């Protein structure tokens, strides 16, 4: 962790982007929870614990953005497969659009500050 970044700022930023990251991880189709965790763990800049993803998946399901299909498995407990609902797709599109706007605006601020 960069010692010059205030912890609270990083914590708040991470809270804000995690839902977007989880929805994006599921965007391509049905994904198992474990595979979503593995993908997001590879984003080193997020610096999350693996378990952090599961409450977010649960909340997104309760909010109606994800639906879950349970697949029986011969090798272990049933596996849960997550997929975006129609509502989830709309919310992701809004989040994506807002995120792009935010990134552009911050880039603009950055350029202004440099010049």
């Amino acid at each position, binding site marked *: 962790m960069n010692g010059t970044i205030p912890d609270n700022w990083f*914590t708040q930023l*991470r*809270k804000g982007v*995690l839902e977007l990251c989880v929805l994006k991880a599921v965007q391509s189709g049905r994904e*198992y*929870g*474990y595979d979503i*965790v593995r993908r997001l763990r590879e984003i080193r800049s997020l610096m*999350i*614990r*693996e*378990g*952090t*993803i*599961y*409450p*977010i*998946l*649960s*909340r997104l*399901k*309760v909010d109606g953005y994800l639906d879950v299909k349970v697949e029986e498995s011969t*090798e*272990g*407990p*049933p*596996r*849960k497969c997550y997929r975006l609902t129609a509502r989830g797709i709309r919310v992701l599109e809004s989040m994506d659009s807002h995120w792009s706007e935010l990134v552009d605006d911050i880039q603009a601020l950055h350029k202004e500050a440099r010049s």
Partner: protein
Amino acid sequence: MKKLAPDANRLVDGYLRSVRMAATQCPAIDPLDIESDVREHIQRAIEDSSEPVDATRVSQILERLGSPLQWLREGGETTDWHRLAMRLRQGPEDWRLAYLSFALLFAAMSFRPMLAAGVTGAFLAARAAVSSIRLRAEPAGAQRWFVWPALFMVYVPLASMLLLWPIAALRFLADLALDAEVLRANLPPTLLGLAERLYAVRLTGFDPVATTRALLNVGHYFSAAVGVWWMIVGLLLTTTPRVAESLFRPFLDRQMRRVGGLIGVLGILLLAFALARGLVKVI
């Protein structure tokens, strides 16, 4: 499903318990969902491990998962109050009983009507905490600062009473002898005089000088009574220390024999003093 070694199973059960407890504090999430996700995660993570999967491997997986309190905080699922409630319910080191003991003692000290019930409850919680620590074979560590106050509040008066009751008993007998007309009439003069002198040992009108003088007058009788009693106590503690150890746990564990020896020796000295004083008076 991969088989887990018994200690690995215990680790997983403990972890899932903490997951359930954490998840029930957050209304926005479904605790059953989280639990089944975590079970699935653990099974997927050990897919490539050989059976039975040992505790070290499971520990690594749980370490990467993180504590439920941490993930809920990272994901913004908890408020400070939820985290505090979780902390009180879960640890560190399962300190719930220690917290309860301290809280009850504080309430007992702060609210007079609660004194008796509060101290009793605090003591029982403290004893339960001591038993729990012993079962886990761990040192008490900083928990002792929450647990010991309640124990001291009961042990110190109890030990004082057990060691010094002969003084109160003598005083009571003197009182009885002087109050009962029949006894007063039939007591030999020597004993009547003794009873009167014993009776004089009291804080009448808060006069410490009079009380001290009275005490010096009959101090050797108290000394003899306490000395004899302490010799008996010393003998009991050295021959059967377990009873006293279990009564005053966790203090003086495995040291009761030594303490018994010390009390016995002091008893002998007190009795010797009493006899010497008595002999001097006779001479």
